């Protein structure tokens, strides 16, 4: 019993090791460090959002004379002013980080899981299983992403869960391809052949010899998937297909755009735009540094 526990703890450590080394590699790159810091700030803000948002994001703000505060410019009470419906922009902005990260992280984890499952099975077993899975991937790769998301969310109904489902259905395909190609090379390595010759089960080989070696690629793909998921959610919300019961940055831009506030209310339009750019770019900075560090031909030798 204690031995099994000991073994599983050892496995967890071995599995975490590549992530730790990846992290150490990343913080050596200045851009990646910025990316990680910005992403970290977004996570903290999203966690404590309900406590730091000054008002309810949907509550109409009233002036002292009891009139609705429409499009009020930034002031000491409302740091980022109000919307055309009298809502506090800063509160909406802070609460919006929750939606972005919830969709981004949940969808990316689901995408990572499915990509890894398909990629490993396809690459490790090969043959007819590989053929079937890869033909499925071909079909999935021919589906135009945003048009599919628009149609699917339009038909399923706009809710955060449906948006996450649609994003997962869309982005597993590229990851599966990438992970499969890594598994193909790992499968041919000497220790895998020895393990097989020694009579190790497929599950044992996959868990102990393949998975720890491909975790870095999975990690990169999950990082990029967070960016794609945030972007897709924002685009859907901007097109008016977001969850109407919560505020997201795409939705803020949709309302601002639809009510023609582009010219007058910069405080309503600029903040959600900048938040989206900051969040998505921070993820790309992490991903880029990762590619740069792992590709020896790109590494700076000077």
């Amino acid at each position, binding site marked *: 019993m204690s031995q099994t526990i000991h073994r599983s703890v050892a496995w967890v450590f071995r599995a975490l090791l590549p992530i730790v080394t990846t992290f150490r590699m990343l913080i050596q790159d200045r851009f990646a460090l910025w990316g990680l810091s910005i992403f970290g700030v977004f996570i903290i803000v999203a966690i404590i959002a309900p406590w730091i948002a000054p008002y309810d994001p949907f509550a109409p703000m009233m002036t002292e004379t009891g009139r609705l505060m429409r499009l009020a410019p930034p002031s000491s009470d409302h740091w980022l002013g109000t919307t055309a419906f009298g809502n506090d922009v800063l509160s909406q902005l802070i609460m919006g980080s929750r939606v972005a990260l919830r969709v981004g992280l949940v969808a990316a984890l689901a995408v990572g899981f499915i990509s890894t499952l398909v990629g490993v099975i396809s690459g490790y077993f090969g043959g007819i299983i590989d053929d079937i899975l890869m033909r499925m991937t071909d079909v999935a790769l021919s*589906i135009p*992403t945003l048009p599919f998301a*628009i149609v699917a969310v339009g038909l399923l109904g706009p809710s955060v869960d449906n948006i996450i489902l649609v994003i997962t259905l869309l982005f597993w395909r590229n990851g599966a391809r990438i992970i499969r190609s890594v598994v193909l090379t790992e499968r041919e390595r000497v220790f895998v052949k020895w393990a097989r010759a020694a009579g190790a089960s497929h599950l044992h080989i996959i868990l102990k010899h393949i998975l720890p070696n491909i975790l870095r690629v999975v990690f990169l793909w999950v990082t990029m998937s967070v960016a794609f998921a945030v972007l897709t959610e924002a685009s859907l919300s901007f097109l008016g297909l977001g969850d109407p019961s919560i505020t997201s940055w795409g939705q803020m831009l949709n309302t601002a755009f639809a009510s023609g506030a582009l*010219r007058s209310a910069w405080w309503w339009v600029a903040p959600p735009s900048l938040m989206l750019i900051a969040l998505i770019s921070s993820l790309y900075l992490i991903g880029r540094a990762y590619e740069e560090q792992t590709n020896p031909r790109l590494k700076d030798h000077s």
Partner: protein
Amino acid sequence: MRAYITRRLLQAILVVFVVTTIMFFMFRIMPADPTTMFLEGGMTEEARQVLLEEWGLNGTIWEQYVLYMGNLLTGDFGNSFFYRKPAWEVLFPFIINTLWIAVPGLLLGAFIGSALGMIVGWAPRGGKVERSGILLATIIRGAPSFVVGIGLLAVFSSYLNWVPGYGMGDPQGQTGLMRYLNWDFAHHLILPLCAVIIFFIPENLLLMRSGVVEARTEDYIELVRAKGVSEKRVAWHAGRNSMLPLITWLFPALAETIAGIVVVEIVFSWPGVGRELVLAVVRQDYPVAQAAFFLLAIMIVLANLAADLTYSKLDPRVAYK
């Protein structure tokens, strides 16, 4: 080679077939049933049947499926619920409008992006040009295209009032090609086209830069330099070889970046396929939505096919299995 092309073509046809099937069942199985939505109450049963037949909605789902696929083969996408005319007729003008921003946008974006990528790639490693080039490209890449569009609109249309930010102008009785070859159209085209170009630049830049950086360490570059060729010619040698991944990237990119073009069309109210798809979904005009989706999927399949065939022609190492 011929066997490879045939095999690849058959595969593409199979993919189109499967995607179309998925799409058909997606629209029919979903809770929103078009028959209940578009048939007004108080209609006689005969009138209802006539309407259902007109839209190909009578019979079992399998009969509908066979009918739909059969019609598709003859180029019949069904009739639009909203416009009350064939979906193909509705979509055709929108396709041309989309191509007006998509094709020049992609080509100019690829050209500007790869030119800038060459500069960044040849800049000293770890220097100012390289660092700021990469940082800027990554930030622009991280900007959703509707954010770029809104920014352009706010500055050049609302604030400076240089260009219109809505629609594509009024052709005023112009027909044929003359609808597009006038100053008013060009004036309307500038902003959405810029948004698409900006959308394509960073990816091209980063791709070209990686290619050049990799090529810099290759032996043949040393050889060229040892022959006493000027640095400019050396850069050209490295750049030309980095073009290969770029060319093959271009075709699938056209398809993949339809996503960016859809939102650009919405931001600038540009009457293209993407905007029409969104409107059709909102109006629950399924024949048009299905047809638009089908056209976009076909575009992706053709683009991937073209990419594979180009690649096999350009790179002799690719085996025609």
